[in-house]
């Protein structure tokens, strides 16, 4: 077990977060250098974007305009990811083989998701990738070498750091406190609803209630794992909390964008609602991507990454303290000590990469004149946005391929009922805060 179980205790260079940050920041630096050294065309050619098409020959001509572009994109990420795989201790050969197939799937779903007819039916790339993955993953036994490339967390972290490069630091500073305020209101209320439903209504252990509450209110599976560890919940309780998060997160990928369209929400407001009420980062990016507007992805990121994910360490300390002082029956003498070091130990490091990418691009833009700035936005930030899109497509495919519904059925009705109480609080509260209380702020994010 040692390596996988002790992920948080591994040296920095053996952690997935580290390599996601290195690869994404490397791309940001590389693209910026290429821009200033006159290599912008090579970057634009590598970061292929498939235009909307309605007739087959238009797609064919778009792809044949630069037939080497998909190969360049594939080679770039294959080299970066396989290098990381070697250091992380994954089998690099199997990973490379698996990533090759995943890349082929991503080309197909992106081409289909760019079709005008399917777009009209809201079947854009995120939903198509999920649907293809879910259908094949549940119907066919996937080969082991392919499974080794299905690294949802790794790809979403690369995408989040690249997201930082497309989100000016000034927006994070302006909207960050607001996102933190909205997220805190919802997280505290949802956590309390699930915790009290679990412990008072359904008689579950407080640690189990806290783990379920964290999964439903902070940042999904990552929170269930962090808080489960902080309060020493049983392994089986953490597994049930993960099942709850996955079931509801996948349901919300479809439900929240559908409801947003039905209710006629503006993209920025819809993104904020999804960021408040979706349960996992990767699933949330799929839901926000389905809105089909960059503003939704920006407000989602502000709410989820800045407002919610950043504070998992603080929650861990609070829950660890409650665990040893309140929930620990048979406390022999004075309670165990809880150190504030827990905050840093549980802090998701990829957020530092996200902030660094945003700060770097903002400083670059501030230090060049407006004409060069416009050009930089087009020739550097544009391709980074496209590369981010590919990272998210691999994320969505991986979610689909790894969501095995038959593996998520081993839980009782009580944890399901407690978590559902949280959903019934979280979703309407998130809607009200996003559309009424803080609406003007979310509409202002461009």
């Amino acid at each position, binding site marked *: *077990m*040692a390596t*996988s*179980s*002790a*992920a*948080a*205790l591994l040296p920095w260079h053996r952690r997935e977060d580290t390599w996601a940050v290195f690869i994404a920041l490397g791309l940001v630096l590389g693209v910026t250098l290429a821009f200033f050294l006159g290599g912008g065309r090579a970057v634009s050619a590598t970061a292929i974007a498939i235009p909307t098409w309605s007739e087959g020959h238009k797609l064919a001509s778009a792809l044949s305009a630069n037939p080497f572009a998909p190969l360049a994109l594939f080679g770039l990420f294959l080299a970066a990811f396989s290098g990381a795989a070697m250091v992380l201790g994954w089998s690099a050969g199997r990973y490379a083989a698996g990533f090759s197939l995943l890349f082929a799937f991503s080309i197909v779903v992106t081409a289909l998701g760019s079709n005008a007819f399917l777009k009209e039916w809201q079947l854009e790339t995120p939903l198509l990738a999920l649907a293809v993955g879910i259908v094949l993953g549940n119907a066919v036994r996937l080969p082991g070498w392919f*499974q080794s490339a*299905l690294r*949802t*967390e790794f790809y979403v972290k690369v995408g989040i750091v690249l997201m930082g490069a497309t989100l000016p630091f000034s927006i994070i500073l302006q909207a960050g406190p607001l996102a933190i305020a909205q997220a805190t209101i919802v997280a505290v209320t949802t956590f309390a609803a699930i915790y009290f439903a679990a412990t008072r209504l359904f008689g579950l252990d407080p640690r189990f209630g806290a783990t379920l509450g964290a999964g439903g209110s902070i940042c*999904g*599976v990552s929170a269930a*794992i*962090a808080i*489960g*560890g*902080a309060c*020493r919940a*049983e*392994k089986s309780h*953490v*597994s049930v909390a*993960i*099942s709850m*998060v*996955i079931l509801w*997160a996948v349901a919300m990928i479809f439900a929240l964008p559908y409801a947003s369209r039905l209710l006629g929400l503006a993209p920025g407001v819809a993104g904020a609602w999804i960021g408040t009420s979706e349960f*996992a980062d*990767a*699933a949330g990016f799929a839901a926000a991507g389905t809105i089909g507007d960059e503003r939704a992805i920006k407000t989602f990121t502000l709410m989820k990454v800045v407002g919610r994910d950043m504070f998992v360490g603080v929650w861990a300390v609070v829950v660890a303290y409650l665990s*040893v002082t309140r929930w*620990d029956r*048979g*406390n*022999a*003498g*004075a*309670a*165990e*000590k809880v*150190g504030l070091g827990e905050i840093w130990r549980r802090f998701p490091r990829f957020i530092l990469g996200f902030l660094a990418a945003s700060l770097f691009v903002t400083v670059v833009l501030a230090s060049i004149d407006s004409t060069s700035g416009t050009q930089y936005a087009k020739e550097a930030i544009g391709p980074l946005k496209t590369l981010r899109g590919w990272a998210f497509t691999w994320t969505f495919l991986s*979610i689909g391929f*790894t*969501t*095995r519904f038959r*593996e998520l059925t081993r839980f009782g009705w009580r944890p399901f009922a407690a978590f559902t109480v949280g959903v019934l609080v979280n979703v309407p509260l998130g809607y009200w805060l996003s559309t009424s209380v803080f609406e003007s702020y979310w509409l202002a994010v461009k």
Partner: protein
Amino acid sequence: MVDHLTRIFVDAEGDRASDLAGALALRGFTVATASGRLVADSTTVEAGEVKGHLRSLGYADREYRVHVEYARRWGFL
């Protein structure tokens, strides 16, 4: 769905620390010294179980600290 590591930092001193580490070793923990302090790891024994065991042997909660790390297995969102 998850793997786990239960890590005990021994805060007790002298013979008391050695005895506590011995009790953990008998329970299946791997004991090592890190930064001059005894540290015991197990990937099979859960935190609640080992804490109950140490209490039954008369060790107070203040004499050690428990860290639990969970890590998602492959494929979970």
